[in-house]
């Protein structure tokens, strides 16, 4: 008898294989799979209950957890082990949402559609696997598996420099994964954990010496940080984003960047809290650098997509800050912020893609005044930009607010650094809206038309979520607290 998490995994595996083989009806298979998966995740949300600490061992327990032996040797036990808690469940939800909007947005893909939709599903399968895995090997397996579909998505469907970007993306993130893997091995072997399971690492890691914890945490931080991406390891991101097809960018920004943040919380903060506390000043510095550098780089871009890509560095910098302050509030803020960024950046990348389809360029300086030609697209752009700069009642506001609150609790007036940078963030979004939406119309192609229905539906769903979670952030925060972070300040 297999549990619901495994059933959903099998659903995605089956759906992916079927999509690859489906030929002309691939998009319908992909849509059906995504819908079923969304329903499954909705069931998870409704049936989710508080995962308790095991009273005898003090080890956190997970909801819907399953475990079965996979490889057992005298010195190494690997389990197939899955489960969710309040931290991973929002990411699972995000996976389901972005999967379906990506399928809908690219519904009319004409270049080898069965391969395209298969790869979209495969990426989401990998991310889902990462979020539910509670065993190092299994985690790493899915983590690496995500790279391959993304490599092909960028390299085959991407822009002019797609081959360079695909290879750069692959190499950067693979090197990082390798360092992460060594550190995870280190955690397991140095602490003499009985298996590669989260529970066994959680129980045995505190026994590690302080310096060992610091080194291992730094290794993990490098591995996860490249995925974030943190300055100075961020240079793969703009290339990958700019060259990726729109659907690829949506998954890249919406899901793949979140893997780093999730991993840092799950395997860094929870398993090696002492390591995190010791290197916290370094994390603050890196976070501030990412926040400032990302914002100023965005400000200097003319390409809409590149601008959104750099703003991701800024936002993920705030996520890192919220994790680094090491408090319950900080973790909640980080998860919420990542969820928000997943939704909003997906929306903005879709906007950039649609502007490009319609006007043949993404250059903010030459494409001006799109509102009269494409009012629906203009509205979507507006919501996306406002949400991203943190307007109240939209999804990012509560997240950023909590993040700054957590920073204030821990760092006092240092919170002014990210707060002041918000002015820059607001600046480039407002400048973008001013030009793109309200400038005098220029160089409008004769066949310019407003959004096709499937693109409008996909963006509409994201806009609705932006508003919904903006008004009711409690839907998520009440979920996130159900995680092994009670012990935190």
């Amino acid at each position, binding site marked *: 008898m297999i549990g619901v998490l495994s059933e959903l995994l099998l659903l995605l595996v089956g759906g992916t294989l079927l999509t690859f083989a489906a030929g002309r009806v691939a998009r319908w298979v992909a849509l059906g799979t995504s819908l079923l998966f969304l329903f499954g995740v909705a069931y998870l949300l409704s049936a989710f209950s508080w995962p308790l600490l095991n009273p005898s061992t003090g080890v956190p327990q997970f909801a819907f957890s399953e475990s079965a032996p996979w490889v057992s040797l005298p010195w190494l036990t690997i389990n197939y082990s899955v489960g969710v808690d309040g931290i991973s469940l929002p990411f699972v939800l995000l996976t389901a949402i972005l999967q379906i909007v990506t399928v809908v947005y690219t519904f009319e893909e004409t270049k080898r559609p069965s391969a395209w939709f298969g790869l979209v599903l495969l990426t989401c399968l990998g991310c889902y696997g990462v979020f539910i895995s509670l065993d190092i090997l299994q985690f790493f397996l899915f983590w*690496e598996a995500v790279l391959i579909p993304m490599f092909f998505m960028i*390299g*085959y469907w991407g822009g002019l420099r797609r081959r360079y970007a695909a290879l750069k993306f692959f190499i950067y993130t693979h090197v990082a994964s390798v360092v992460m893997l060594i550190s995870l091995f*280190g955690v*397991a072997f140095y602490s003499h954990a009985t298996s590669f399971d989260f529970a066994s690492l959680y129980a045995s890691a505190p026994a590690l010496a302080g310096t060992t914890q610091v080194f291992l945490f730094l290794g993990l931080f490098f591995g996860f940080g490249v995925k974030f991406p943190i300055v100075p390891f961020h240079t793969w991101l703009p290339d990958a984003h700019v060259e990726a097809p729109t659907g690829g960018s949506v998954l890249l920004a919406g899901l793949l960047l979140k893997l780093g943040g999730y991993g840092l919380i799950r395997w860094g903060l929870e398993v090696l809290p002492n390591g995190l506390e010791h290197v916290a000043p370094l994390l603050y510095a890196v976070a501030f650098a990412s926040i400032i550098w990302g914002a100023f780089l965005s400000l200097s871009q003319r390409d809409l997509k590149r601008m959104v890509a750099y703003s991701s560095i800024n936002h993920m910098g705030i996520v890192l800050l919220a994790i680094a302050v090491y408090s319950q509030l900080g973790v909640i803020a980080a998860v919420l912020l990542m969820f928000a960024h997943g939704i909003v950046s997906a929306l903005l990348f879709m906007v950039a893609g649609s502007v490009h389809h319609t006007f043949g360029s993404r250059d903010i300086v030459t494409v001006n005044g799109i509102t009269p030609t494409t009012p629906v697209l203009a509205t979507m752009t507006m919501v996306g930009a406002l949400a991203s700069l943190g307007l109240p009642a939209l999804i990012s506001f509560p997240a950023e607010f909590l993040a700054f609150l957590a920073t204030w609790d821990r760092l006092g007036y240092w919170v002014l650094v990210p707060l002041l940078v918000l002015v820059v963030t607001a600046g480039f979004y407002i400048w973008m809206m001013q030009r793109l939406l309200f400038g005098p119309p220029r160089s409008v192609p004769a066949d310019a038309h407003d959004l096709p229905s499937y693109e409008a539906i996909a963006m509409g769903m994201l806009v609705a979520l932006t508003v919904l979670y903006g008004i009711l952030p409690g839907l998520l925060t009440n979920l996130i607290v159900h995680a092994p972070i009670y012990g935190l300040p």
Partner: protein
Amino acid sequence: MVIDLATLSPFLPELAVLAAALLIFLLDVLGVRELEALGAVAVAGLGAALLFVLADLGFTPLLGVRTLSASLVDAPIAAGSLYAFTSLGLVFQVIFLLATLLVALASLSRPSREPGGAVFFGLLLLAALGMMLVALAADLIFLLLALEVTAIASYLLVGYPRRDSRGLEAAMKFYIIGALSAALSFFGASLLYGAYGSTSLLVLGHSLPAGGNGELAIAGYAFLLVGLGFEVTAVPFHMWAVDVYDGAPDDVSAFLAGGTKKVGLFAFFLVFLGPVLLVVAPGTSASGNFHASVQLVLALLAVATMTVGNVLALMQREMKRLLAYSSISQAGYMLLGIAVGTAPAVAGATFQIFAHVFLKAGAFLVVAAVAGLGVGPLVTDWKGLGVRRPWLGAGFTLMLLGLAGIPLTIGFFSKFILFSATVQAEGLFVWLALIGLLNSALSVFYYGRILKVMYMDRAEPGEEPKPTAVAARLALGGIGWGRGCAIGLCVALIVAFGIDPGPILTVFQSAATHFLTLGV
């Protein structure tokens, strides 16, 4: 000594291979030139031997054909015994037989009535026989002689298409280097004999390189290290490998990379792991110090091999040369396992060697198939191949991903086990694991480049390669059934063990544990 059937029965696998080889030469004399007939005999002989060895390993469904009583496997080795049945040796016999079987299967797809078919299959089987004997060795001279059987057969295999000047040059180079390496190994063995008056690996293991004869023994081990280093293409003894792999016929390259190189690795196991490890507790005695320095030398050799192989592979423009350099770097990972020398690491190295058979031999077999389709030798000649031939492309992609150690392939698990065992050994080895893993990340660059060419570059219309006249007549769109089966088998095993490596890992682990405690 009276030879009766009962004494011979443990050698049934070897005898099956020998009989098949002799039958092939006999058929040639009788005028049977059809490649299919000769190949069928070879495949049958290898297949039978494989079944026997699997049965001897205790593979349950085959216990009926067991030729070796369970009490003989991993039994204490009698003094002066030339051979021993160890479970690790049997595991390596399986590896050798699988590699040979794949090559024999693929060679069935060569043009029928091609001259030299009997020579090819006959020599292939003799090489396999030598490899199987290496796996049984318990004596240094027995080991080196068995290595020579394989070596001489493989020199001829490289040069057997007589009209191919590149092949002849490769054969000559291979022969000269091979003779040199054999001479060095034998010289090393004679020094060890001079020091201890025995060539039994067991005696050597118990005689510590200390005292008056110590220096002689250390020199002997050094000569053996160099001689065997040539066999496994360890840097700096690797120069010959690329030219030979490149110049040899494609199927023979697959055999060299997937088969004969592994023999050298097993010889490393026997010479540097078995005896040297009999004296554990490093640092406590002269022997412990010797063990520690052997570990250090092997570790340096491993790091140099993987790094140089990878860096040079990055610069290659020809597919076969690229694969040859990548094969050198893979040897580095395997040496790493020997350097660490714990049971988990030995199991990991064994797994890596096992995986490499399907990954690298499979890749060379695909190269052979693709050459038949009219694709040139350069990596860039492969452009668009993945789109034009989706099944072949997908198979090759899986092999490359496996070589790079990407999940859901056997290569991921083999590296995972090897490197986690290395980290588990703690101390200096953690850094070795890091170097190894960074190397493996570096290798992604050139494997990724091939994928890029295969899927993302397009051949101009009209410039698509045309299959050669010979290949055009073959089944499966110019690949042929035999080659198709061999590639399919590789892919199936790559995926199957990539998802569930548990069963074979357990076998490797127990074999490694027994191997390390043989003489204690």
